[in-house]
């Protein structure tokens, strides 16, 4: 099953998003929160790399990020996690993670399909 890693500047935000998405995935999705850094607010390439390794069961990992250094640190973590195939989805972190969680539970899910579903969330409107 394709794994998900949630990278936010806040560890609590990453955990909360993973929690909501886990429910959407019916409890079967592999979602690992990797938020915050040693000092609190921030992102850590080491934490993200460990998250990727934990989320990967061999099928690969999609990484969801918030902004700024989260993107750079996720890219770096992917380069460091050389035994795992991982990609970043260019999607809003909460909605993207929910979409991706649902897609990973599909038998036909691929890395591409999970990224695509996550990125569908870019166009979601909340009113109307």
């Amino acid at each position, binding site marked *: 099953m394709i794994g998900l890693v949630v990278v936010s500047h806040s560890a609590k935000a990453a955990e909360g998003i993973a929690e909501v998405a886990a429910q959407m995935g019916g409890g079967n999705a592999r979602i690992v929160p990797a938020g915050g*850094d040693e000092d609190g607010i921030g992102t850590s*390439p080491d934490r993200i790399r460990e998250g990727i390794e934990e989320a990967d069961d061999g099928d690969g990992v999609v990484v969801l990020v918030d902004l*700024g250094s989260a993107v750079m640190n996720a890219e*770096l973590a992917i380069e*460091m996690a050389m035994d795992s195939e991982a990609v970043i989805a260019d999607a809003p972190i909460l909605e993207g993670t929910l979409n991706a969680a649902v897609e990973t539970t599909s038998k036909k899910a691929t890395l591409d399909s999970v990224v695509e579903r996550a990125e569908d969330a870019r166009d979601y409107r909340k009113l109307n």
Partner: protein
Amino acid sequence: MADAETQREAVLDALDNVAERLAEEKEYLTDLDSAIGDADHGANMERGFGKAADKREEFAEMEPNEVVKNVGTTLISNVGGASGPLYGGSIMFASQELEDGITAETSVAFAEAYLNKVKDRGGAQVGAKTMVDALVPAVHTYKKSVEQDDLPPLEALAKAVDAAERGVAFTVPIKAMKGRASFLDWRSVGHQDPGATSTLFILEELLETAEEYLDGEIDRDARAEDAVGRDE
């Protein structure tokens, strides 16, 4: 340059010099960063290079390129923010170019690989008020001085430092287009970029170290004149 052992000593000395300099400049870098950023650049750089310099014993048995690589990974784990991947990740990546040792040729390849990684990762071009504004003139000048002008590496590095200095000055009157400072829009004009400044400090310390290990002398008076463009 000399044998692997001397090269490793040079890298370790450079690391010590950079760590010491960034510790001295911690407050200055923090002041620059508090004007247009989040006031953590001085502390982040001091911590990261300090941790790397603390590993001198651990590095003492490694090949020179391995030392450089491990400096990169130590920075990745200890600098934080965007500077961790930009400085640490780029050093780690560029260290591949030093696998066959440190020569004039491989140092140019290292410098270019470092610059390209910073540009790829951060997405900044010249004129965005970032470390790229110091790096591009430094790396271009170094490459041209070594490859086309056949200057000895020490002289080439001195010219690169001068070029970086002008690049840092260039960040003052321009508007930030990348990073947190870009959120300030026009308010960023008139402030010197902290990343370009720490990049210059690192290059200055590399030059100081190179003077100990490489033949030749640098005419500091000529450098100063050259830096403000009075003398060609």
